[in-house]
Every structure is written in C-alpha cells, then in structure tokens.
C-alpha cells in the first residue's frame, strides 16, 4: 500500500521577499500575502468553523506578521512562522465564541478508546463520486467540525496543508510525539465518521 505524498511546496525566492518586506517594501509583502492567503484562510476556517472569524484571522494574522517582521529570526520558514500566528489568532477567536469550553492545543483525550476502529467495512472504490461536489463538501465540513479543535488543527496542518511533523510541532509549540498522537487520532476519528457515508453497499447504488 502506498504512502501519502506531501504537497509540494514551491521553490522560493522567499528570503528575498522577506528581506525586502523587512526593509519596508510593501509590494514584497503583498507577494507574501498572495502566496499564502488561501492557506491561512483554509487553516483559519478549519479551526474556527466560522467564515467571518476566518476572514478576520486572515487580516489580523498578516497585519501581525507585518508588524513583527523585525522579530522574525528566520530560523524557520516564513510560512511556518505565519501559520503559528494564524493558529493563535484562530484559537483566540474560537475561545471568544465558546467561552464555556476551554479551547487549548494541550487539550487531550484521556483514553485511546475514542479512536479504536469500530467500522471495518471497506469503502466504495471512488467514494467521493457517490455525492455531488456540494454534498461532499457538506459531509466533509460537518465531519471535521465534530473533532476537538486540537485534533483538527493538527490534521489541517499536516494532512491538508502538507506541513511536516517537525514544522507542525514548531508552529503549534507541541512535541513531535504529541503531534503524532493527535494526528493518528484525528485521522482515525475522521475515517470512522466518514465510513457511514462512503462504505461499500453491496447490491445498492451506493447512495444514501
């Protein structure tokens, strides 16, 4: 069985752009915004699960990055540094909306039981084709929304955005074992929940 191939990150003249932006070149910073605004929006919406909050996160994360460029030591990639800012902004908004629930990246589930596979029916060969594009997005959105914020944050960074385990740990201030543990549980919980939509239905037409 093959492995998951990471998303290829474009080779970059990023250092040049970052240095120019640090020197106050706004058009260089605009290039960085263009390069990463889609990623920041996707991450923000995965975490906050709210469109308005995601828009605010994009604006505030880039503004904060611009204001703090002088403090960016370039020990990590600019993108990893930006993701760290965006994740913090997103979690802050989530806490504001759900003050009754403590939202923290350290939040953990006590037992492994929540991730033990119960559904072991195989899926249809091309499960995404069982639904229209709109239906599929609704299913995926609803499913990931049910995950604890700490799990969906790790999942979106590793599996959707293609950050390495080390970059994810760096962006979230988590240890590598903590990233791996959350990622495993996020993947297994999503798989479990998606099984009811995608499993092979012998003799049926595959639809609900």
């Amino acid at each position, binding site marked *: 069985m093959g492995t998951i191939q990471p998303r290829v990150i474009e080779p970059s003249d990023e250092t040049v752009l970052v240095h120019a932006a640090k020197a106050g070149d706004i058009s260089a910073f605009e290039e960085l*915004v*263009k390069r990463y605004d889609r990623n920041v929006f996707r991450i923000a919406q995965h975490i906050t699960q709210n469109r308005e909050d995601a828009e605010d996160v994009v*604006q505030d994360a880039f503004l904060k990055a*611009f204001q703090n460029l002088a*403090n960016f030591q370039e020990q990590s990639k600019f993108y990893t540094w930006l993701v760290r800012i965006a994740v913090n902004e997103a979690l802050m908004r989530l806490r504001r909306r759900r003050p009754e629930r403590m939202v923290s990246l350290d939040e953990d589930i006590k037992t492994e039981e929540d991730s033990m596979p119960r559904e072991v029916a195989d899926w249809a060969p091309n499960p995404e084709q069982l639904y229209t594009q709109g239906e599929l997005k609704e299913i995926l959105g609803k499913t990931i929304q049910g995950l604890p914020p700490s799990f969906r944050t790790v999942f979106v960074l590793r599996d959707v955005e293609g950050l390495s385990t080390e970059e994810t740990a760096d962006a979230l201030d988590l240890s590598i074992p903590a990233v*791996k543990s959350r990622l*495993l549980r996020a993947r297994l919980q999503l798989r479990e929940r*998606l099984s009811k939509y*995608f499993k092979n239905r012998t003799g049926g037409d595959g639809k609900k």
Partner: protein
Amino acid sequence: MTCSDFLQELTDYLDGAMDAQTHAELEDHLQWCHNCYVVCNTTKMTIEIYRDSQLYELPEDLRGRLRAAILSKCQGHGSEGQ
C-alpha cells in the same frame, strides 16, 4: 505484531516515516489481517479526500477585498522593524 501495534504505527506507515524492518512487519500484518487492511486503506482515502476536497477555498472576490484591507492596514500601521 497485533492489530493494536499496527494501529500505533499507522501514521508513520502512511507517511513513509519508518525503518525498513518495521515497514516489512506492517506489510506482513496487512497480508493476513483484513480489518487492518481496511482501516489502513480507508484512512489513506480519508486523507486524500480532505486534501483534494477544496473545502474552504477562498473565493476570488473575497480574496481581493481581504488583500486590499490587509495592505491598507499595513500602510497605516507601518512595520516596527522600519
């Protein structure tokens, strides 16, 4: 190797981040354990479906508005590094 051992290694297996010997042991387990085969295969599909889904894409009109707002705020505030 038990199914529980397999599950613990699943993330590293899917990411191709393991030594050759452990990889061979996992492949061997998959040969005879149908449940782990299904879990592994459908977990891989889960990741691929999310990666390819274009869930939460930023619409172009909103993208333009956000970029204009960001740049205007940046010009207004200035970088502390300047």
